[in-house]
């Protein structure tokens, strides 16, 4: 009987590494290993002629065939195309992500048999477009994405499980405030959560989608390259292969510097070679500004949650980059608390995702939930309107950031002209009042409005924002007595037929009803 149930699988699709976890027969989450025997699969794709190779081997290939390797594609999600042309082709970043997901699926299948239902995690700070793209990547890889959840939330769930909060007996009566500091390979997230019994409530979230261990690596690359340049008058960063090789060396040196006080980087370029010694102090000085950015964001999000450090019960560290001693030292100094690194830094997110998948699957079978998650939105959502006073384009916010989800918000706008027959609703995400400083998510248009509406007729825009961070828009024109649910035409998003085409190409599966 246990063998027939659908496995609850969670995927942490990271910038530099990905992990897959499932719930075992007893409901305990455990990470699965890939075909190479590792719990973490490098999120790196090598386009090798007709072959697409993902993982460790692709990572190794950076040192010799960098131009054919796509790394850190998660950073480009939300853009139209990956920043690098691979074998003369431009790939959408979500397609590269789909190749990674496909590899994760194939490897996991060896151990748990075929499965398709998964929960995928995204940084809390991912915006609507990026979430949609991640969901698309899941579809192209042949998955049915049950839900998209935030990485810090998943980590907190894993932590809660480990602490025994998820059992009736183990649940705490006292609400606990947990600040999750998640410094991964490519993204940084801070989330303040309240764990009340079996409820996981996000109070505030903030982050930086372009800050992670990768940036620390690049600083090491710079130190090494400049030292090399001084010695040999060549810059290894100019040559993609030398740069790729150097990056791998530096990445390894970074790990060494977490346990030792100095490390050596070997660099070969144009027949010259050098062994460059870097001390931990040197490294910490060179990356101080990066660490400061995380410190600033951490303090900000605590403020946004309306809390003080004295209210925080746990300072939970997640993500591989928290192994750097400087992170602990900074947080200790900032918070006056001892950071808690008791969850598996690299696996907690995937474990939490699998717990969430288990919850959804159980709910579908009519079982009561064992825990609940309440989320907030990470970015303010609004529409572009024209300021009647200045005549300039302005961002009219409907859902301010850190609003608990799900939420439906309404705001009334007015038509501009007499007999206006259509309205273009431009949806933007961001905190700035100026529309141009915000991210355009997409637009929807309302056509065939009733004739002869006077100028300044009210038009209600309703946003319905789901806990998974996906948006639905409705427009109501009160006079017209008409409700229009509109499809958002997203910026930089792949059309359904493209998604189907890629799906066929990547995993050989036929299209399904997917929106």
């Amino acid at each position: 009987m246990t063998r027939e149930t659908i496995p609850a699988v969670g995927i942490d699709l990271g910038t530099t590494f990905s992990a897959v976890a499932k719930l075992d027969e007893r409901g305990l989450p455990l990470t699965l290993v890939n075909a190479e025997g590792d719990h973490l699969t490098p999120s790196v794709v090598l386009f090798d002629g007709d072959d697409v190779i993902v993982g460790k081997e692709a990572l190794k290939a950076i040192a010799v065939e960098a131009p054919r390797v796509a790394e850190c594609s998660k950073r480009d999600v939300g853009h139209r195309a990956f920043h690098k042309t691979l074998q003369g082709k431009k790939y959408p970043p979500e397609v590269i992500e789909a190749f990674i997901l496909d590899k994760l699926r194939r490897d996991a299948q060896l151990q748990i048999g075929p499965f398709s239902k998964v929960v995928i995690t995204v940084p809390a700070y991912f915006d609507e477009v990026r979430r949609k793209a991640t969901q698309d990547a899941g579809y192209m890889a042949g998955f049915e994405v049950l839900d998209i959840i935030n990485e810090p939330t998943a980590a907190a769930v894993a932590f809660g499980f480990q602490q025994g909060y998820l059992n009736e007996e183990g649940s705490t009566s006292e609400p606990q405030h947990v600040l999750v500091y998640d410094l991964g390979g490519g993204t940084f997230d801070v989330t303040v959560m309240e764990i009340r019994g079996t409820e996981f409530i996000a109070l505030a979230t903030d982050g930086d989608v372009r800050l992670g261990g990768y940036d620390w690596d690049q600083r090491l690359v710079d130190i090494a390259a400049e030292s090399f340049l001084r010695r040999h008058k060549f810059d290894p960063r100019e040559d993609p292969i030398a740069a790729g090789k150097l990056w791998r060396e530096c990445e390894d040196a970074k790990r060494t510097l977490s346990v030792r006080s100095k490390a050596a980087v070997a660099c070969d370029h144009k027949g010259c070679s050098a062994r460059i010694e870097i001390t931990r102090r040197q490294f910490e000085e060179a990356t101080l500004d990066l660490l400061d950015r995380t410190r600033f964001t951490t303090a900000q999000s605590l403020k946004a949650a309306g809390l003080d450090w004295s209210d925080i019960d746990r300072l939970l560290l997640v993500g591989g980059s928290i192994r750097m001693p400087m992170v602990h030292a900074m947080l200790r100094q900032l918070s006056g608390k001892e950071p808690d690194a008791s969850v598996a830094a690299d696996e907690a997110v995937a474990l939490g995702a699998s717990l969430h998948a288990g919850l959804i699957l159980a709910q579908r079978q009519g079982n009561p939930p064992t825990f609940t998650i309440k989320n907030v939105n990470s970015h303010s959502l609004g529409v572009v309107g024209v300021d009647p006073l200045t005549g300039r384009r302005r961002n009219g916010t409907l859902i301010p950031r850190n609003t608990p989800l799900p939420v439906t918000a309404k705001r009334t706008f007015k038509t501009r002209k007499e007999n206006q027959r259509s309205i273009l609703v431009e949806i933007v995400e961001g905190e700035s009042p100026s529309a141009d400083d915000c991210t355009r998510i997409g637009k929807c248009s309302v056509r065939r409005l009733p004739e002869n509406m006077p100028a300044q007729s009210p038009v209600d825009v309703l946003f319905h924002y789901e806990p998974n961070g996906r948006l639905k828009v409705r427009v109501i024109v009160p006079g017209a007595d008409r409700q229009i649910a509109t499809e958002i035409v997203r910026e930089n998003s792949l059309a359904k037929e493209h998604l189907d085409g890629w799906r066929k190409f990547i995993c050989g599966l036929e299209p399904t009803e997917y929106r």
Partner: protein
Amino acid sequence: MTREIPIGIDLGTTFSAVSYIDHAGHTLVIRNAEGEILTPSVVLFGENEVIVGKEARNAAAVQPDLVAQWVKRDMGSPFYTRPIHGQKLPPEVIQGCILRKLKLDIQRTLGRVDRVVVTVPAYFDEIRRKGTADAAEMAGLKILDIVNEPTAAALAFGETLGYLSPTGAPQKEMTIFAYDLGGGTFDATLLKLAPGDIRTLATDGDVMLGGHDWDLRLADFAADAFQKQHGLDPRKNPAAMNRTLAAAVEAKHTLSARVRASLRVEMAGRASEVQITREQLEEMTADLLERTSYTTRQLLAAAGLEWKDIDRLLLVGGSTRMPMVVNALRRMSGLEPDHTVNPDEAVARGAALYAGYLLAKESGDVRKAAFEITNVNSHSLGVEGIDPDTLRKKNFVLIPRNTSLPAKATERFSTKMEGQRSIVLRVLEGESTIPGECTAIGRTAIRDLPAGLIKGWPIDVTFEYGSNGRLSVHAVVPGTSHEAKLDLERDSGMTREGIEQWKRSVGEAAGFNSFESMLQDVLGINIPLAPSIENPEASPLRAPTDGRSAGATECSGPGVRAYDSAPLDDSPAEKLSPIPPCKPGASALRTFAAKPQSLAGAAPLWEEAEHIPVENTVEFAPEKPNGKPPSAGMSLSRVLFNAIGFAVFSAFGLALGYAILHYIMPDKFKWPW
């Protein structure tokens, strides 16, 4: 609660792993200080520290002479293949260093270290098992038991499928074939899983076959290519060879995912980029794979089974990731190889489960010890005697291999001569009928037999082999009160003092500081020496003649294998077989504390028994030392030849050099004539 935490250690040839069972009953793998699940089984004996793991492996490319790796393959030999810091180290000591590092990681993760289960290849013989237990002892680990790797893997597999509880989901029996190809050893084991019952049917293997051999082939291939291109052989330079080997390992991994790879060989400022395809690798290692196939077929035949009787073909060990392995097994068996357990972790997890089982049994918690494990012995056990037909020495097997444990067997032997006063019992392990081809694992003697016993007097020998791998040998001379008992316990093979000495050296206290004291002991002069071996002349037990003294002098060094010879000291030498000197490079001969009991006043029964006599003469099965004895010196003609050759070539070289210089700078270097 002071619940003892079940801990399992997979001490592998190339990598080691540790697992434990948490309070929820979940098996978890312990990460080392470097954050990794697998710790390379490599030891660097640095100038003032001993480093184990990744860093040590990286150092192999720069300081190859200070690095010890693949030590597990040398288990059973007196010393590691090559001296470190000029010092010959017993492999147990190096393994002890690895275990010591694992112990620190356990300590760091769990806050304490309880008793552990350590795994060994099923095909490890008694001496190698004993050595593994000694290594743990030296590392300050308390051994709960030693368990076979495939059994552990099967436990991990059984847990996943719910076989470890009688109420587990599957109720039907399942026969599984565990194909365990690790870094250095190969094991094939047939097991039967029934709910709550795990039974080993038969086991076979090869302790000298593993992924490392594949690496060596690849490295050879690359070295040949380099030699062709540059005329230099990287195999001659240990650092270059280690770098080439590291590149070969990477290339092997690449070839599991891709169809071609390249590996870079660098030496003396030159480099070759060697291309290799998966097909090439498969061709050049086909014979290695064939060896595993052969063993696999042999095992099935031994168990009287066919492929259609096998339900699952379980893959264990990192080397089973090679597509050639999976394909060959698929072809041979018609079964789809099973990837359910993680080949790297399954053994450690299973060992932890086994530890949990033993602890539960110990505390009488029947609910938790709800499964039974039955093992078999991997090698036949017997005694050396003389065949009455051929009058040659023969290995008389009492417990054949693949016998379910515990097992007990009794056999009657008889004395060889009239008036024989003592009997020597040599315990052998191995399949051959020729004692010289078997491993002598123990020895005992019955002495001071009543005078005047007739020829052919019976001697009953009983072997009792416990499921924990402990063999006790009991010999009784009916009609007399003479008997001998020999307990081949894993915790008493190496002399107590030897282990204690090394244990102090490897370091008992917490912290790496104690490694320094170890270094002093290991690499300094403070090496414990066993008097009886150190000075062969002083030993009353040394063979009086027959030119084996060369072998005996070779044995000087750390006396960790000193024989507990005291009780035999006062015995008449001509009545006793000499204790064989240890063979350099060969499997160590270890005798165990023999306690011959001499009881006077026995009433002899004059009865004839027609049985094979146990030899009591000084004649001895010829030892075949593996290592060559040190050559006594070159023959005179050869020395002369070399000297003349040297002189001629030196003169020629000098002349040539002078000539060249003369042509370059004619003014400064005038012709001397």
